[in-house]
């Protein structure tokens, strides 16, 4: 299906606030995958993510009359899901101390599946990239995820993560600098071998 544009989403949001169930269902349909992957990146718990997304939308529906207009619906939903997941994992940590998987803060980890590069010879490069990505700070990893997997602008990443835009810009600037240096070495090595 066509991805939802910000303008279309804003229209759907207004229709949904006016009581249009189908508009909310269209937003759900349009952003479900993105929300699911983001939630999974944050917590690694599929059931929890499913429940939180479901709860989030049902709550939106019940409270539609008290909601305000939003600029970028996708960012609003990401932020709300992040908060939901934060509350839930905090609860889980309190009640189920036997589950060490729930850490204090979100841990975004990149996996091989996400950087399977088709061309041969790039395997080493993608392995390096993956290793470098996972050595970045938690916040850098999350900000990069929101930038490159969800295409959010710095301003929206700031909204989702509860930071100011300059901090997000710095996080991403520094992260990309690290990645560039790691990959520059690889490229040099490859060039050296070829020569």
């Amino acid at each position: 299906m066509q991805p939802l544009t910000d303008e279309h989403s804003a229209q759907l949001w207004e229709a949904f606030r006016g009581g249009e169930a189908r508009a909310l269902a269209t937003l759900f349909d349009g952003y479900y995958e993105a929300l699911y992957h983001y939630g999974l990146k944050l917590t690694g718990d599929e059931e929890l993510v499913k429940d939180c997304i479901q709860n989030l939308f049902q709550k939106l529906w019940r409270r539609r009359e008290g909601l305000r207009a939003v600029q970028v619906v996708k960012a609003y939903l990401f932020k709300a899901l992040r908060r939901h997941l934060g509350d839930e994992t905090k609860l889980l940590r309190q009640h189920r101390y036997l589950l060490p998987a729930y850490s204090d803060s979100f841990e975004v980890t990149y996996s091989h599946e996400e950087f399977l590069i088709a061309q041969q010879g790039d395997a080493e490069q993608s392995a390096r990239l993956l290793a470098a990505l996972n050595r970045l700070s938690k916040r850098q990893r999350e900000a990069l995820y929101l930038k490159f997997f969800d295409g959010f602008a710095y301003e929206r990443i700031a909204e989702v993560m509860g930071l100011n835009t300059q901090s997000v810009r710095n996080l991403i600037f520094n992260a990309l600098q690290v990645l560039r240096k790691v990959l520059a070495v690889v490229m040099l090595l490859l060039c050296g071998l070829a020569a």
Partner: protein
Amino acid sequence: MPYTAYSTDDFLADESFQSFVIDHDPAATQFWRAWAAEHPGKQAEFDEAVALLQLLATGQLQTLPQSLKQAETAKLWQAMHAVPEPKAQPALRVGQRARRWAGAALGALALGFAGVGLWQRATSPPTLAWTSYATKAGERRKLTLPDGSRVTLNANSVLKLATTWQPGHAREVWLTGEAFFRVQHTALVQLTAVATAPANVKFTVHAGPLDVAVLGTQFDVLNRPGRTKVVLQSGQVQLRHVRAGRPETLLLKPGELAEFRPAATAAPLAKRPVDAALYAAWTSGNLDFADTPAAAVFALLEDTYGLHITLRNPALRQQKLSGSVPSQDLDVLLATLAKSLDTNVHRTGNHVRFD
């Protein structure tokens, strides 16, 4: 900072540059192509930044199984169109139990959403089809549910359920009033422990504050204002009540009556042994006694008719009763009882006194 002073890192972090490389945004692409042509001195930094962003843009997420999204869309849709049921709103209990039986009915709907802008069409929103069965005062109805389970609905009662049930999915009904259930076992393997059984083989009666979950058994559920009771004839029943967001459960054995007492805040769910057959007797319209202690009959009258019974002579409890009494008309029933017990009965509203 002017672009001419940009390092590779500056290009990398520039949002307009990113939309050129990653999103192929037309305006950004046009701008950066032209800029690169005019500034050959920056070629190295420019190309390095393009290469790294392209590499990052190869990141791909695995696609989600379509069935998952369909099931979740169905769940949301159902919650948004929940039948106004004061005690058992599915919307309030997300994640506790899968409500998949609506899955297929709404799967088609989920597909319908695939087209953007479809919501704008003037079609009426699809709603889940519900069936309700209701009885008037003095009326009894025998029903067969989509899974073959049989229900006898007592007077002044309503049973609500989805019109179509998907085989292999959780079965759910909502009850106000009283009904006797003979539930079909649908599990392929012979499961006996309802507490550990998967949701898709369970049959759940939502009765006000209580959820009654079974696999395949015979039981009576009474859900009238201020009184919620379950009596188990055979098999196993799991009762579930959510209090302050926390579920409490109680397992019933055959011959036990469970009662929900909202006033007993410490332990609202309590059970005690009863003569279970008596509690199902109304389904035939006759109460059959065979050396039945009068105490059991008094308990039945209090439990199912909501009476308060006082006895001037406590020894009446020990008397045994035999025979058959029509259960439809309470006054006839009380008069017959009094006659058998060789005593007099006085009834004022819900208060009944045997002298």
